[in-house]
């Protein structure tokens, strides 16, 4: 089975304000406000380029950051599931 690919709204569908290391995000499509902790904003940044699988998201983040995690794949999958439940990403 092919891995799920995830998509996110384009950056102009969101208003982001940084407050003390957290990202306050207003999602125009839903009218909802979310508080995001790292790495959720970085995942949205990675998806701004277009749909990607969890592994591709991890790779893209790895290019910009030094990743600190026991199990990066599981952690990214868990973060994507949270973003999906909030409606910020969806499976294509």
């Amino acid at each position, binding site marked *: 089975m092919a891995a799920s690919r995830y998509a996110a709204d384009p950056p102009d569908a969101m*208003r982001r*304000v940084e*407050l*003390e290391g*957290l990202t*306050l995000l*207003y999602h*125009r499509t839903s*009218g*909802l*406000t979310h*508080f995001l902790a790292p790495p959720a904003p970085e995942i949205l940044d990675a998806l701004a380029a277009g749909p990607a699988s969890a592994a591709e998201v991890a790779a893209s983040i790895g290019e910009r950051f030094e990743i600190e995690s026991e199990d990066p794949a599981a952690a990214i999958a868990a973060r994507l599931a949270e973003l999906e439940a909030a409606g910020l990403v969806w499976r294509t």
Partner: protein
Amino acid sequence: MNHVFGLKVGPVSFRIGSQWRGPVAALRRLYAGYPEPDGVCDFTVRLEAERIWRRWLRPSVAIRGDYVLPDAAPLPLAQGLLAAEMGMNLQMALGQKRFLLLHAASVERDGRALLLTGHSGAGKSTLAALLGERGWRFMGDEFALLDLEDGRLHPFPRAVSLKNESLGLLNGMDPGRLGPVLEGTPKGTIRHLRPNPEAVARMGEAARPVLILFPRFGRGLEPAVREVGAAEAFMRLTQASTNYVALGERGFDALARFVGALPSKAIDYADTAQAEALIDDLWPAA
């Protein structure tokens, strides 16, 4: 409706209709000196019998109006004034969309406003009423209205509702400013206090907010001050607002600007003298 009363409080006007004379007579006394609505009212409140016969037989007042909550329970006619107050609060909580509505008290000095917010029992009403008699201008004890365009606070100086232990504050107060003692209400004994003439005369003057306080009251608490981060303040204020979500992006922008521009602090106090001292300490730096 048989008895009608119009009332303007800050930038908001109400039309209150009642099937009984009592509640409207009490409102007229309590709000003597308040301006009348100019032209159109933002909200309509109706005080009416739940069932036709309940107008005469053990009369009870159902709180109705433009916006209603299905679970609201009626009050005995003797508490009609409280029903009117709750009716106005309900319209604000459910229907106010012109301002970001914060469940908070506010007072002003030298054109700068202090916002006090926290859940029931934190002492906002008592503190605002007290400060309003001691050189501050009382702006409101229940709702603060944040302007979505310019970020200023609009006054909403309704009568202060004091409960139970706080009633001591009314000792020595001009009896002409007091409402009737309402006993046995769902919140205990309640008595209303009309804000002083300055607060009423200046109800049209908005003020720039400079400090947010989250007071916490408790016997045995040591007086203390704690910094509240902007993110926490944002979160807490969304939960203190009934219309934050409904205002959409404008609410988001207004609130993000608000918490970004102002210091927020939590204060603990065990009596009003301690709270006053803490506020006096914090105010000059704000």
